[in-house]
């Protein structure tokens, strides 16, 4: 897809397993903080969300994700690595659409940096979504 930050469809168990497995490779890490965003089966005006369809401006996603990583690494000196994966296309309720994985020497920076990365993603990543309801009608968010 020309990007390290987007994945087609839900963030897969396979992708998650790969990241989990590489945790132990850095023995100077003492804490890993992970955030998973999941599509909720919200009910809106009596209609239930069955999926979200994400679209993204891929080139700009790359640039903004790199910027987010630089921002976090300059603010948190103890952070060793940051991984960001966001879905494009259809992600069903109960599936994962966002993964943020931060490793640091100590727990506080791992958790704070992960939390701040998620907020920066919400504010700065050029991604859009439309909620698809069970009757196939939809609503842009």
């Amino acid at each position, binding site marked *: 897809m020309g990007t390290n930050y987007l994945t087609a469809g839900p963030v897969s168990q396979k992708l998650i397993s790969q990241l989990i497995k590489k945790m132990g490779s850095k023995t100077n890490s003492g804490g890993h903080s992970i955030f998973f965003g999941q599509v909720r089966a919200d009910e809106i005006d009596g209609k239930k969300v069955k999926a979200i369809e994400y679209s993204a401006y891929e080139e700009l996603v790359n640039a903004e994700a790199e910027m987010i990583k630089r921002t976090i690494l300059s603010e948190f000196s103890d952070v060793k690595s940051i991984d960001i994966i966001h879905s494009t296309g259809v992600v069903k309720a109960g599936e994962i659409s966002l993964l943020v994985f931060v490793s640091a020497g100590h727990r506080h920076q791992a958790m704070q940096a992960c939390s701040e990365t*998620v907020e920066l993603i919400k504010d700065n*990543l050029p*991604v859009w979504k*439309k909620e698809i309801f069970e009757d196939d009608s939809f609503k*842009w968010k």
Partner: protein
Amino acid sequence: MEVKVLFFGVLSEISGTSVKHYRDVKSISDLKLRIYDDFPEIVHYNYRISINSEITDNDLLLKSGDEVAFMPPFAGG
């Protein structure tokens, strides 16, 4: 000269397309007028603009081959 315009999110639905080319547009403000002519409804939406993958709030001049994106508020996560 010709620029490439990308519409994202709800704006792609209003314009009925995700890509459209415009000829002989001097600047962002010039381009906006042309787009409002084609899709009057867009004036009611919030959006930001990027030129060649760089977000800008300024009324910059355009040159041939520029890629201009019209982006509603981001909604990732």
